[in-house]
């Protein structure tokens, strides 16, 4: 990718929405990612499944440049975002991430949580940012929570606000990091429904999840991560019904035994 282009310019031939090439990542002696290759076309919804510690969250954090890579490259719409000269703040505007633990800003109202980045990063006026935020809050049934602080909301509501906060930046790609794992079971559905709606709307998403039923419903492709590599990937019907790899079979069997599929 030529580096002379202006930061906002997108290359003419847009590559895949996301391409991950040979990504390695260690924490100390622990090799968490060992050569990940992955490609998402626009409107793809890819679910990452695998045991805890298989590297799902780390992969998402690497794509969002929250963790530096050890080696490998990541391309967003054909532009390498892992090159040293890249403006990480500019890249992160285009990639939204939602965390397991919500990470809402506790000192701000729901509305301020959502408008902060559009105002401070995109330079939107207060009025514009509020209009955009209220539109999104309304769409996800949170309009009456606009002035509440996060600690007044249920976990499901908090997570929906976190999704809205990411959407307010109108990202090209949304990363979801086990967003229902910290929720009480009865609150999971309301959050998953939001994601279903986003998938219908064509949002490109990479989702780390333990919700296998959800992955089977929503994913255009499922990737099974094992010990830092993508061991197997394919359409959900294939992965869940006819897994090729022994490790995938074992993992799914454990999920079935636990009554989660």
């Amino acid at each position: 990718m030529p580096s002379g282009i202006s930061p906002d310019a997108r290359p003419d031939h847009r590559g895949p929405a996301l391409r991950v090439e040979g990504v390695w990542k260690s924490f100390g002696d622990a090799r968490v990612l060992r050569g990940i290759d992955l490609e998402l076309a626009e409107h793809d919804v890819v679910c990452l499944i695998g045991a805890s510690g298989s590297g799902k969250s780390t992969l998402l954090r690497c794509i969002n440049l929250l963790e530096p890579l050890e080696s490998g490259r990541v391309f967003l719409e054909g532009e390498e975002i892992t090159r040293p000269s890249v403006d990480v703040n500019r890249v992160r505007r285009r990639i939204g991430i939602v965390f397991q633990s919500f990470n809402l800003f506790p000192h701000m109202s729901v509305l301020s949580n959502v408008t902060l980045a559009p105002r401070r990063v995109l330079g939107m006026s207060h009025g514009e940012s509020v209009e955009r935020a209220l539109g999104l809050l309304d769409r996800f049934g949170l309009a009456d929570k606009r002035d509440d602080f996060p600690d007044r909301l249920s976990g499901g509501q908090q997570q929906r606000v976190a999704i809205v906060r990411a959407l307010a930046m109108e990202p090209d790609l949304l990363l979801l990091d086990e967003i229902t794992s910290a929720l009480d079971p009865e609150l999971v559905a309301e959050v998953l429904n939001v994601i279903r709606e986003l998938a219908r709307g064509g949002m490109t998403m990479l989702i780390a999840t333990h919700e296998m039923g959800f992955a089977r419903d929503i994913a255009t492709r499922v990737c099974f991560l094992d010990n830092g590599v993508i061991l197997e990937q394919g359409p959900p019907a294939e992965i869940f019904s006819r897994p090729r790899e022994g490790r995938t079979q074992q993992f799914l069997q454990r999920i079935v035994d636990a009554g989660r599929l």
Partner: protein
Amino acid sequence: MSLASGGPPPPARRYDRSALRSTLVALGSTAVFFGAVGWIVVHAPNWPDVQRSFFNGAIWAESVPDIVPAFWVNIQLFCVAEVFILVLALILAVLRSLPGPVFFPLRLLATVYADVFRAVPGILIIYILGFGIPALQIPGVPNSTFVWAVVSLTLVYSAYVSEVYRAGIQSVHPSQEAAARSLGLSEFQALRYVVLPQAIRRVIPPLLNDFIGLQKDTVLVSYIGVVEIFRQSQIDQAAAFNYTPYFVTALVFLVITIPLARLVDVLIARDRRRSLAGAR
């Protein structure tokens, strides 16, 4: 009693009665205890001497109009210094929190600053700046002892207060910064809008504690010739050859610091309640 009226009332009434009894017992035992101590003190053989020297009514009446106005100087000192301290300490704490190898010199500077000014006794700084700098007679450099008193107190207290801020910054979970950065906020914006507002709220009680310490330490600048409350009480003490003026001064400090100390307690209790509520 109908069910609609709520919980069963008899136990509640019993509780009220026992609470009242506890209060009465506490009041009674407090009165007896301090009454006994007071009686012993005033019936001690040397009490009249102590009273004449420390709690002399006539000297009290004479020195109050001298001493209380002199406290205005202390108020100016700690109010002006506190503003500079809060700003300088915040800058130091932020400098120390900057990541990356490029900022090593700034981190080093802030670290050395905090180490030096916490290590050296404040009175030395006050002497060095209060006597030393005006003696240089550098044109344009102020030689007002008040100015150098404020500078000295600011330098010493900023070192402590920057540590308080830093503890606050470190107490904000890294996931908060990650959330801010993931939205595209720059490192500085994440600090400014997300980390610092939470950090500062958490350290208000220790900041108030340091403010109380600063109020008391304003008496140290009397040594470089600022006539504030302590110097004034020394003058009155020497004139009357009686220690009552010191007790007037002590009382003035009690009057202003005790409410602040209680405020700190209230804030800590409130934070505790909040974090307990948040942990539900």
